[in-house]
Structure formats: C-alpha cells, structure tokens
C-alpha cells in the first residue's frame, strides 16, 4: 500500500514532517489539584493529578521522596469497535507503567518526601477508525504523556523539565512524523519518544520492527523535532495560563 503519494502527501493529507493538530487545555476537572485535556488529531485524553498528599497506605510511604502512581484507563467508547474490557488488563498496566516512569523521572520527588502523587489518565478517544483497541491504545501514549505534563504543571508540582512525547515512523522509505492509526498499523517501524527538551535528554524510547541504523537515526531525529514542537506549544499554553491567573488575581 502507498502511504506517501508521489506528491509527498500522506493519507490524511499531511506532509511527512507534519504533525496532527494538537490542542491542550488546562483545568477541566474541578476537584483535582491539576488537570488537563490534550488532543493529538483524533486522540483525546484527560489527565487529572491529585497530590502531593499524605500517603493513604503507610507501608508504601517513602522517606526520601514522593510516591508517584499512575492509572491509565480507556473509556469504553474510545475505540472504533466497542469492546468491554476488564479494568487493569495487561496493556493498560504496561502503559500506566510507562507513563509513571516517564513522569517520575521529571518530577523532583526528593522535594516532597513522604507524600503521594496520583496521575490518572483517561482516554476519551483513540485514533483508530474501526480498530482493535489494542493497537489504538499504543497510539495514545504520546498524548497521555503530554496531558500528564500539563496536569502536573497545573498542580504546581516542581519538575526538572517539561517532558513531551511524539512518535515517528518509517514507511515507503520516508520517515514520517506523528503516525496516525492507519500508518501505525501498517507494520512499519514506530518510534515513540519522550524527551526533556531543556536538558536535552531522552526519557522514553520504544520501537518495534526493524530499521537500519542510519535510518533509525533519521527517524529518531524527526521524533525529537516533533517533541520539541509539542514542547513549544505546551510552554505557550502554560505561559498564557500563568499570565491569566496572575492578572486575574490582581495585586
């Protein structure tokens, strides 16, 4: 199948280096300490942060840093075909773990010893037409991490950097940024990357399928560019939000 037309356009009309439309909004859940919605194309994710707060289960308390927990759930209606999934299936557990580890790396947990921070990520919509939910779940990882970053900043939790995430792939001998569902399920390589742009460090890297080393370098470079673009956008949203909060409050 042809994923990139001779004119250099992808199936959804994007250029190879073009991202899907992204949109972020802060403060969607009233009771949470921090919350945000993040959309990447058709993928739509809500993240809510509770804490830092007292650890309810004392045996999990850590004396030198905060306990970070994460739960990832997909709404029943989030995927194309409707499938009743038990909560806490292996796929969700794996993604919860990935999000938790990525966020934990950027939260300055040592500043909040003996506390707990909960990150709840709820997928409202996963890109994937009439897809199987498993594949659709993978494509939501980037959006989940971006939403969690926004929600954590909204909760005023100190972080080393804003982690942002984006994926890139390789199809028809062309590196493609931010794969949509059709491209993702085409069987080509798919690199999901999370970076801390300021520190210039990679915190999340997952890839399936095989790629020659020199091409991998290109694809990864493309994903890094994508992450940086997301970071610029997220920074804009946060700065606008901070300014609004400050001028509304007045002196």
């Amino acid at each position, binding site marked *: 199948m042809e994923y990139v037309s001779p004119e250099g356009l992808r199936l959804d009309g994007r250029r190879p280096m073009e991202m899907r439309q992204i949109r972020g909004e802060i403060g969607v859940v009233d009771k949470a300490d921090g919350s945000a919605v993040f959309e990447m194309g058709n993928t739509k994710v809500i993240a809510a942060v509770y804490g830092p707060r007292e650890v309810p289960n004392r045996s999990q308390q850590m004396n030198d840093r905060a306990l970070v927990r994460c739960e990832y759930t997909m709404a029943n209606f989030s995927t194309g075909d409707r499938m009743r999934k038990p909560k806490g299936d292996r796929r969700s557990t794996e993604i919860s773990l990935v999000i938790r580890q990525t966020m934990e790396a950027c939260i300055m947990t040592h500043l909040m010893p003996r506390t707990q921070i909960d990150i709840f990520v709820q997928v409202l919509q996963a890109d994937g037409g009439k897809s199987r939910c498993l594949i659709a779940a993978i494509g939501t990882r980037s959006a989940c991490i971006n939403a969690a970053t926004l929600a954590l900043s909204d909760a005023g939790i100190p972080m080393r950097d804003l982690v942002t995430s984006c994926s890139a792939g390789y199809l028809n001998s062309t590196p493609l940024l931010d794969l949509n569902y059709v491209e993702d399920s085409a069987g080509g390589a798919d690199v999901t990357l999370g970076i801390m742009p300021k520190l210039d460090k990679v915190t999340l890297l997952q890839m399936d399928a095989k790629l020659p080393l020199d091409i991998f370098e290109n694809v990864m470079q493309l994903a890094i560019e994508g992450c940086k673009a997301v970071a610029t956008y997220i920074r804009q949203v*946060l700065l606008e939000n901070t300014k609004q*909060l400050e001028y509304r*409050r007045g002196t």
Partner: protein
Amino acid sequence: MKDLQLSLNQTQKVRLQRALEKLESLASRANSNASVTVADSIPVNYEDGLLKGHGTSEVNGEVVATVCGVVERVNKLVYVRSLRARYKPEVGDIIVGRVIEVAPKRWRVEINYSHDAVLMLSSMNLPDGIQRRRTALDELNMRSIFEENDVICAEVRGFQHDGLHLQARSQKYGKLGRGQLLTVPSYLVKRRKQHFHHLENYGIDLILGCNGFIWVGEHVEVTDDMLVDHKSQQHDTKADKNSISPEDQEKNYTTQQTRENICRTANAIRALSTLGFSITVEVIMETVDLSSSINVAIHEMLGAEFCVLVAEKEAVRRSMTKKK
C-alpha cells in the same frame, strides 16, 4: 485557562472578554512579564551573589524555574511564586482545617497541604489561659473538644520533626459551629493582618484561612469566660446527636435572615473564585452589595450574568485604585 463552565451568550462573552482585557492591561504595567513556566531560564545577575529560593534549580550554570509562576526577587534571593498549587504553610498563618483523626495526644488535620497537620493537645489552651497539663483525663476527653470531621480554626506553629504543627492558644481559635466550608485555590487568599471578620450587619463570621479554606457561618460570641461557652457547646452537640425531636431541632436552626446572608456571602466567594479574582473581605462585601443592590436571587449569583457583572465591577474597581 479554565473555561468558566458557564453558558455565556454572545454578548456576555464579549463583555467578559472586555473586562478581562482591561484587567490585563491594568496588571501588565505593574508586573512586566515576570511569568515563567517549568524549565524557563531566569535571567540573573551573578556578580552580587545569589540565593536560589523555591521553585528554582540550577542547570548548567543557569537558574531554571521548576514550577509555573511569577519570578520574585528580594535582595539576593530569587524565587518563583507559584500560583495554582497546594498550600505552603508559613509560621503564624491562620488556617481553617478539618480534623481527620483523633490520635494519642494529638489531632491530625487536613489543611490542603501535602501532609496532614498536627495539633497537639498541649497546643490548646485551657479556657482560662493556663497551659494545658497532659493528664490522662484530658486525653480521654479529647473527643469532647474536637472529633473527626470537625472544622477547626488554628494557627501554624511551625515545622517539627514529625511534620507541621498547629496551635490554638487563643479564644478565637477552635471549633467552628454552624455554617459552610468553602475551598478556593490558596493563592487567591493573601496573608493579611486580619483573617477573622465579624460582619455585624449580617450577623455572620467569615474566616479567610490562608490555606484556601474559607468558613462562612453563624456568628458566635467569643466570651472571655470560655468555660461557660464550652459547656454550652458541649450541650449543643449532645442535643444534636441525640436529636431529641425534629421540632426541637427545627427551633435550633439558623434564622432565615442569617442563613440568607451566609449563602449570599458564600456565593459571592464562589463567583470570585470561578473568575480567579483575589479574595479579600472588601471584595467579598462589594460583591454581596452588588448582588443585593440589583436584586439578584442568591442562587443566580453563580450564573453567567452575575459573573460578568462581577468581572466588570472588578475592572472598574482596580482602575480606580490605580488612579489613586
């Protein structure tokens, strides 16, 4: 920004937008672009030494913000004042909290901080002002002072090895009786000289806790001789618990007028908090007056139209103070 969760019509949207723009223009002069987000570098002058405060860290010789907020500089100290975040206690703050556990010789209190605060039995004074002696009897009677879920008011005493300690060594502190507890983001409540307000015309007590918990309730007379008060309070709670008969309980209810005042004040605070305006007793009273002067029903104070009015009023108020 939080979309206000109100259904505004087109004209209301435009009016709100205009009011907010005015607020923005008023603020920008005072605070010129000191807002930062996580990982923004903060320009500093290294020559005269530097103290890095809260919300900053050093990366490759650069000072970098770790939270979103506003950069503040005090002499050599540079720190980021965060906005939306949990409460950060300072010694002497007056706070409102909820008791969540009665433990040996202490109460644990939820105050919107990252930990529960501790109020020791020994940090409570006896009614006549002598320090409480830790007798076994005292400990047994702790539940008669505060029990779980009680709303209390206290002062931040300081940090100790086992966490944040509170104290309630004055008559004005203690259990709060009838009324409602509101929670607003703590950055909206500023530290001031006075946090207790007795609004005499309305017969209500208003306590603006620094932690963002606000109490609006029926006025309770603080007597010097709290012994009597204490007893009557105890009697009160017992009566409530046993709830002798619904009729008796009904007689006991807050009067209609006071209740209206409490709800009106509470809704003024809710409206201000949705708009994200700083909450002081003056602004609350102005909002209350605005609502009664234009005859807005109490529950409509949470509606779109009133919020827009409050925003417009705030814009006028701030430009007035600016001129002065």
